[in-house]
């Protein structure tokens, strides 16, 4: 058979919309979450949590609780004195770490902080005990308003820091000479992005099983970062890493909320070792709202300078981030606010940039990573300013963007904050969106639907993000943990079946399928025949987990690198068996064939000759069919997209409805278009939540007033329109596989596009959409102040 012809026949799985292998278990209710595991003699924890946002603990009275049948013990900070405090170091100058006792010692700093631990036979009796425990507080003034907390040192949350500002950082690039220029114009605003909760369907859950015989601990954790947790627990508990196995089984969504270390995780593990019992804690929704890391809450003052032609001259920004009570591990509380200022210049050619960021601690729940980290806020602010600039000089929103987007030929390009953009189709994505049928349709709808019942408008947002970040760049600024590499192990067992083992941890992204597609193409087998294992630190010894749009890029790169090594081993053995040269062998869907004879073998025969049959192969060829490689892309891959939203605002109710939505994106090589589209859809849905509905609210005493899914509104299917996705594949040649991360993009672009659409719909009025979410109440306040109508 002709060699070229045969290669042509080899199926390619990358690029195919293969149905997700993991869906059958998810959709049939057969997924196995941490909470589904129950172990004999298992005890449950119930936490006594602070009712006050800022107070000294005077005493805790729990004698009555101990009397209840089924209560094993009630523990306070004294019982955890041997544990180190949680602290998140950083190499950033002017950064002050916070120190959190796993169980609060004498002061609480947010409602929900752990004061005592009830060890109970079950959760019911544990909650009975909770009612009998009295905590006497000496209330301190809450620290709520970040602007006030930043300037006022009278009320300190962390006395040892001497200020409520844990980090202040400035960026400056270029000059400020433009201020003197005659032709300079500017637009500015004070923008706010409300605090939000990640809201995974599965609440956090931890189960630690201590094996008395071996002294080994298995922590089942609903975490995104099993590797980071294993390393942290090893340090905090003083146990060797090989004695702790962190297993993230099926995890029901993360969105960043399961991407940090939590006190509950430490307590569960510590107590299982101390009590020599399996210990479990399952968060309920109330605890999830109170304690799972929250997102955003920034105040951003920004100003964009441009000339008469709409060419951007300079950008100035001042960010105050309200990070909550503690700086979260391992990312630090600076993660979000610093990235807001870092990503503020966006994908535009802006020669001058001057930015400042302050991270302020307040007596609210700690904030942490959330889908898009920093970029939803940065893009919201910049894209609003871009539209405001366009409006002020009567320029079309496409034209002003096209004029200022970085041209591909100028890449790599270092923006004013220092981020370097590499191969990405900024202008291509924008052009594709404008030339799409979708855009024609929305202009059509906009013109046709003009009526006296609604205002209608469309909005664009264009952004760039850094994904699949290698070791040269910290995912979190100044973080001393390397997150730039991942490992893949691929092995063939005695039956000839192939397993891929990864340290990344899928929590619904479809990585089990996409990684199988990658390995399938490299080796020449069917994706459905590959078993992907992830989220188990005993199986993958090094690797951090899944966050920051890294798993397909770095995990996928590791898969390619490893598969290539394994393929060489396969070919070497097969060449001997098929009596040919390795170069004369092709592997198609698990059949290994000689190209110049009609001989072929399957993987079972291959494995049999290597592992079992001691006659066919000479000893030196019986090397195990195993490979393990790690991959580090060194830098990051730039992903970009343009979003267009069409919205309608009811003139009576002031309710905003998203009618249509388009995402024109470049995530490099698309591994599975169905999964990519699904990730885009989910991201946009969360972005619609940010734009229109979701708002975590604390009152002026630091009490959370939106602690359930009635008061805290996440969008339902009814609020999500049909979302069209257009792909551009702009490759990064140095990256193995040419993949770029895309899981966060939907959430990054949507708030800005919708805000711009709302502003467009209300363009006849002198208003500024500078706060999200835009709900009825928000528009009503604008209306009341005479800004609409």
């Amino acid at each position, binding site marked *: 058979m002709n060699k070229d012809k045969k290669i042509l026949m080899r199926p390619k799985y990358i690029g195919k919309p293969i149905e997700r292998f993991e869906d059958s278990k998810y959709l049939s209710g057969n997924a196995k979450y941490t909470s589904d595991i129950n172990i004999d003699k298992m005890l449950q924890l119930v936490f006594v949590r602070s009712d006050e946002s800022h107070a000294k603990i005077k005493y805790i009275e729990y004698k009555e609780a101990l009397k209840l049948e089924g209560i094993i013990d009630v523990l306070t900070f004294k019982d955890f004195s041997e544990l180190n405090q949680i602290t998140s170091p950083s190499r950033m100058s002017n950064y002050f770490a916070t120190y959190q006792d796993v169980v609060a010692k004498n002061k609480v700093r947010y409602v929900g902080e752990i004061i005592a631990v009830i060890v109970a036979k079950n959760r019911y009796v544990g909650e009975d005990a909770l009612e009998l425990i009295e905590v006497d507080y000496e209330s301190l003034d809450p620290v709520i308003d970040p602007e006030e907390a930043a300037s006022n040192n009278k009320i300190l949350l962390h006395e040892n820091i001497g200020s409520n500002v844990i980090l202040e950082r400035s960026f400056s690039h270029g000059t400020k000479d433009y201020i003197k220029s005659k032709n300079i114009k500017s637009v500015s605003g004070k923008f706010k992005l409300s605090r939000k909760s990640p809201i995974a369907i599965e609440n956090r859950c931890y189960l630690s099983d201590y094996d008395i015989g071996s002294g080994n601990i298995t922590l089942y954790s609903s975490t995104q970062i099993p590797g980071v947790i294993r390393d942290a627990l090893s340090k905090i508990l003083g146990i060797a890493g090989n004695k702790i196995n962190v297993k993230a089984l099926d995890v029901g969504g993360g969105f960043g909320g399961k991407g940090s270390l939590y006190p509950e995780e430490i307590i569960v593990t510590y107590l299982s070792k101390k009590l020599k019992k399996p210990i479990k804690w399952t968060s309920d929704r109330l605890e999830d709202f109170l304690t799972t890391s929250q997102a955003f809450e920034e105040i951003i003052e920004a100003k964009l300078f441009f000339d008469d032609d709409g060419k951007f001259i300079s950008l100035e920004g001042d960010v105050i981030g309200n990070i909550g009570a503690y700086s979260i591990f391992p990312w630090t509380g600076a993660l979000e606010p610093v990235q807001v200022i870092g990503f503020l210049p966006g994908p535009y050619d802006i020669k001058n940039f001057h930015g400042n960021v302050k991270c302020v601690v307040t007596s609210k729940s700690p904030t942490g990573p959330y889908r898009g980290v920093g970029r939803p806020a940065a893009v919201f602010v910049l894209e609003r300013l871009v539209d405001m600039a366009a409006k002020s000089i009567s320029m079309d929103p496409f034209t002003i963007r096209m004029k200022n987007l970085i041209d591909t030929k100028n890449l790599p390009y270092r923006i004013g904050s220092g981020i370097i953009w590499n191969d990405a189709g900024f202008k291509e994505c924008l052009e594709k969106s404008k030339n799409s049928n979708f855009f024609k349709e929305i202009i059509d709808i906009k013109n046709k639907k003009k009526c006296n019942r609604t205002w209608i408008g469309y909005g664009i947002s264009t952004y760039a993000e850094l994904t699949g970040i290698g070791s040269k760049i910290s995912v979190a600024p100044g973080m001393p943990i390397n997150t730039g590499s991942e490992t893949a192990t691929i092995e063939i067992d005695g039956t000839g079946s192939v397993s891929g083992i990864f340290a990344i941890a899928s929590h619904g992204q479809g990585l089990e399928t996409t990684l199988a597609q990658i390995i399938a193409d490299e080796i020449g087998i069917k994706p459905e025949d590959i078993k992907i294992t992830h989220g188990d630190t005993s199986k993958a010894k090094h690797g951090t987990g899944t966050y920051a749009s890294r798993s397909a890029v770095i995990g996928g790169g590791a898969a390619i690198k490893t598969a290539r090594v394994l393929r060489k081993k396969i070919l070497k053995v097969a060449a001997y068996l098929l009596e040919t040269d390795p170069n004369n062998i092709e592997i198609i869907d698990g059949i290994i064939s000689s190209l110049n004879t009609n001989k072929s073998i399957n993987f079972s025969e291959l494995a049999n000759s290597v592992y079992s049959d001691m006659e066919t192969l000479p000893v030196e060829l019986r090397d195990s069919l195993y490979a393990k490689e790690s991959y580090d892309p060194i830098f990051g891959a730039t992903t970009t997209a343009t979003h267009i939203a069409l919205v309608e605002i009811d003139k009576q109710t002031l309710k905003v409805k998203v009618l249509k939505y388009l995402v024109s994106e470049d995530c490099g090589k698309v591994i599975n278009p169905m999964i990519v589209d699904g990730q885009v859809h989910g991201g946009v849905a969360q972005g619609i939540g940010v734009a229109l509905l979701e708002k975590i609210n604390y009152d002026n005493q630091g009490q959370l007033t939106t602690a359930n899914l009635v008061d805290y*509104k996440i969008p339902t299917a009814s609020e999500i329109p049909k979302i069209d996705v257009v792909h551009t594949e702009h490759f990064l040649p140095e990256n193995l596989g040419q993949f770029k991360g895309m899981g966060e993009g939907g959430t990054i672009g949507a708030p800005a596009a919708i805000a711009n659409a709302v502003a467009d719909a209300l363009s006849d009025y002198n208003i500024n959409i500078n706060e999200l979410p835009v709900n*009825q*109440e928000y528009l009503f306040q604008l209306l009341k102040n005479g800004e609409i109508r």
Partner: protein
Amino acid sequence: MKPSKFAYVNAKTLDEALLSLKQPEAKIIAGGQSLVPLINYRLSQPSTLIDISSIIELSQISVQDHKLEIGSLVTHNQAITSKDITKFLPIISFALEHTAHKTIRNSGTIGGSAAHADPSAEWPLLIMLLDCSINIISYKNSRTILAKDFFISELTTDLKEDEIIKSFNFPKIKQNYGWSFEKIVQRSGDFALFSAGSIIEIDHNIIINSKLCVGGAGETPIRLSNIEAIIKGKNIESNFDITNDQFLSLLNPTSDEHASMEYRLYIGPQVIRNVLINSIQNYKDNKND
């Protein structure tokens, strides 16, 4: 969020349920859509939960000469799909489509919703709007109470601890009429920020009677008797000349996480005006059919 300890009785008959209800702190559970969150938050700590969902006689819908009698166990979905309800009081089916989501509508019951008495919910508004009377039974006696006397304040009704709601009498409307229901929400399926329903009975283009009720505007659903009086006797083509102040005079909304009092006062007159206009339009549409 686990309930405190309670005994559970799966009552097979009304008598058994009523007998069990004599125990102190006992509580009836039907669909559990309001009670279960309350007991999980331990805001309610009943000693005994008496599950009445097996009592078949409470889940009937019967058409009688002058009324529709709806058993207290009738679920929202049962009401939506009932041919009798859709025929005689289509506003019920229409309004209930706005109640939460299908899974909740499959479990939630009219009796549970009425007993919970959320002033933003659909059933309480419909019960008040449609001049419903409520058949209540206890171990000792039974009584019938008018909706306006039943709803006392937010989450509070006239129902005594030993009583069970047996059924609801919805009077049939004799005249030709038009109806309308409108609900303002932030998100589909939410409790109303403001809602209104109306029934306008019309004879030869003259409004001879009307019912107008709003939700989310005070401690209970509120019948706007002042507006009902203003429009009575008017020609449907005439301009009603109702001022915003007249629309608002009986309303007493408050601010909460979902909307401010001011927003409710802003949206209120518009929604009420809409349901009046739409009811008349509905009458005209039906007449032309």
